[in-house]
């Protein structure tokens, strides 16, 4: 289990980015963190990853305090961040330690097959499209079999079609080993399609403002009434987190009108 205990971050220059986040995430749970810009959601994710350890509080995974990158925690960034001098297969195998060559090749092949890029194994990253590159990044993060996978706006740089495609694909991959997923996003639909729980954060300093359970069976239909219902709740919480009337700047007018009705 992953526990955050009053996790806070104050940067050396005095910026109070994160003001005490407490959160327990069960193994295999998918949690989406959503919020306006500057609400500290990326800071939170980097603290969990051990890339930017918190200045207050603690991140604890299975009883072990996380202060540096940990083998049980993987991360996927907004950009694929593939190493351009390694072929796709070697990028996928980047996180594999010292393994016999055959084991290594087998694991890489399996991972590439799971993301549907077997034919791209010996291609340079630069030859991939944006969506393909992000799939390679997902494969790279999953190959060491992390217990917790962190995703920092992983699909926000992709076009809408590729994005929904990859969201479904991510769920598919998640179903294999069921790691814990913590997803930072600013896309309400994405949060609801993927997550068991949506945490809404508010800024200055960043903290959790509201928590919305998404109790819909998977796969989730983005067009269903139940989906829309949850979406209105999330949008309304977002509006309140920014201390404003539900104008719906975060969503399309229809949704904002719905949010106004709901509250």
């Amino acid at each position: 289990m992953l526990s955050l205990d009053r996790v806070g971050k104050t940067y050396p220059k005095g910026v109070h980015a994160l003001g005490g986040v407490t959160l327990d995430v069960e193994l295999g749970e998918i949690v989406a963190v959503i919020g306006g810009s500057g609400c500290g959601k990326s800071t939170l994710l980097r603290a969990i990853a051990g890339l930017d350890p918190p200045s207050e509080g603690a991140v604890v995974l299975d009883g072990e305090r996380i202060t540096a990158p940990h083998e049980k925690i993987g991360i996927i960034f907004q950009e694929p961040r593939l190493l351009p001098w390694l072929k796709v297969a070697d990028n996928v195998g980047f996180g594999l330690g010292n393994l016999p060559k055959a084991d290594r090749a087998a694991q890489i092949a399996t991972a590439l097959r799971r993301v549907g890029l077997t034919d791209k194994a010996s291609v340079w990253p630069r030859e991939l499209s944006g969506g393909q590159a992000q799939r390679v990044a997902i494969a790279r993060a999953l190959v060491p079999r992390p217990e917790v996978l962190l995703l920092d706006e992983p699909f926000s740089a992709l076009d809408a079609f590729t994005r929904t495609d990859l969201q479904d694909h991510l769920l598919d991959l998640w179903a294999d080993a069921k790691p814990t997923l913590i997803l930072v996003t600013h896309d309400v639909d994405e949060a609801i399609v993927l997550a068991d729980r949506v945490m809404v954060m508010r800024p200055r300093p960043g903290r959790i403002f509201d928590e919305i359970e998404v109790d819909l069976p998977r796969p989730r239909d983005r067009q269903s009434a139940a989906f829309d219902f949850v979406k209105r709740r999330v949008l309304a919480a977002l509006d309140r987190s920014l201390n404003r009337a539900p104008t719906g700047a975060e969503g399309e007018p229809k949704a904002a009108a719905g949010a106004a009705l709901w509250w």
Partner: protein
Amino acid sequence: MTLAGDRAKELLSQPATPQNLARLVRPMLGLVLPVTLAVLWELIVRMGWATGRLAPPPSVVFATFVDLARTGELQRHTLVTLWRVGAGFGIGVAAATCIGAAAGYSATVRRLVDPSIQGLRAIPSIAWVPLFILWLGIFEASKVTLIAVGVFFPVYLGLMSAIQSVDRKLVEVGRAFRLTDFAMVRRILMPAVLPAYVISLRSGLGLGWMFVIAAELMGASEGLGYLLIDGQQLGKPAEIVAAIVAFAIVGKVTDWLIVLAASPFLRWEDVVRQD
């Protein structure tokens, strides 16, 4: 060898469509101007419109070149010059790589050495010659040192700034996968820096060739630079031009060797996204 060979094979094996023909012909366009001028000058001298005594026509230069090669003079002088450039280049690159890597990697080292090196860089390297001759004598040591100094600066600067501009996002990938410092250098920093390093080696080598001429012009009994002076003092312009041609050839070949040696590691740079 393989790279250029493959490219040529690939070009030749393709059907002779107009596009392929254009790809073969286009690089040749650059030859039109020099070849035309050479032929023109040859004709002018042949017709007796000019004596070509101070500006020998291509045929005379070629004959001189062949003569020098037949007697072994050309090879001897070229080898001496090559040895000097090789030694100076080796020493300069070794020093620049060590200091440049340290200064790029550690801010403390950079603050310590970079201002001094930047100060020294402002001095035209030829200005050191009298001092080097006083310190090291007029023979090989002072020449090799001058070349090493010339090679040092571009390589140092290129490597240091390349290390500093390595994409922090890729370094973070290394951190997320818990690379040790050594693994970070080997698996992230070195490959990331290589393209810029190769470019700096090439410009360093170019300067090495420039400084070997300077060193040999100022006093040498052998070397291609000596051939230049010899040609001047004995009034043999064809010998000067032949030496210049020899410089051009060995300069280009050594540059090409660097490119060739690096190409297996830089193949990823040539590809383009096929979206």
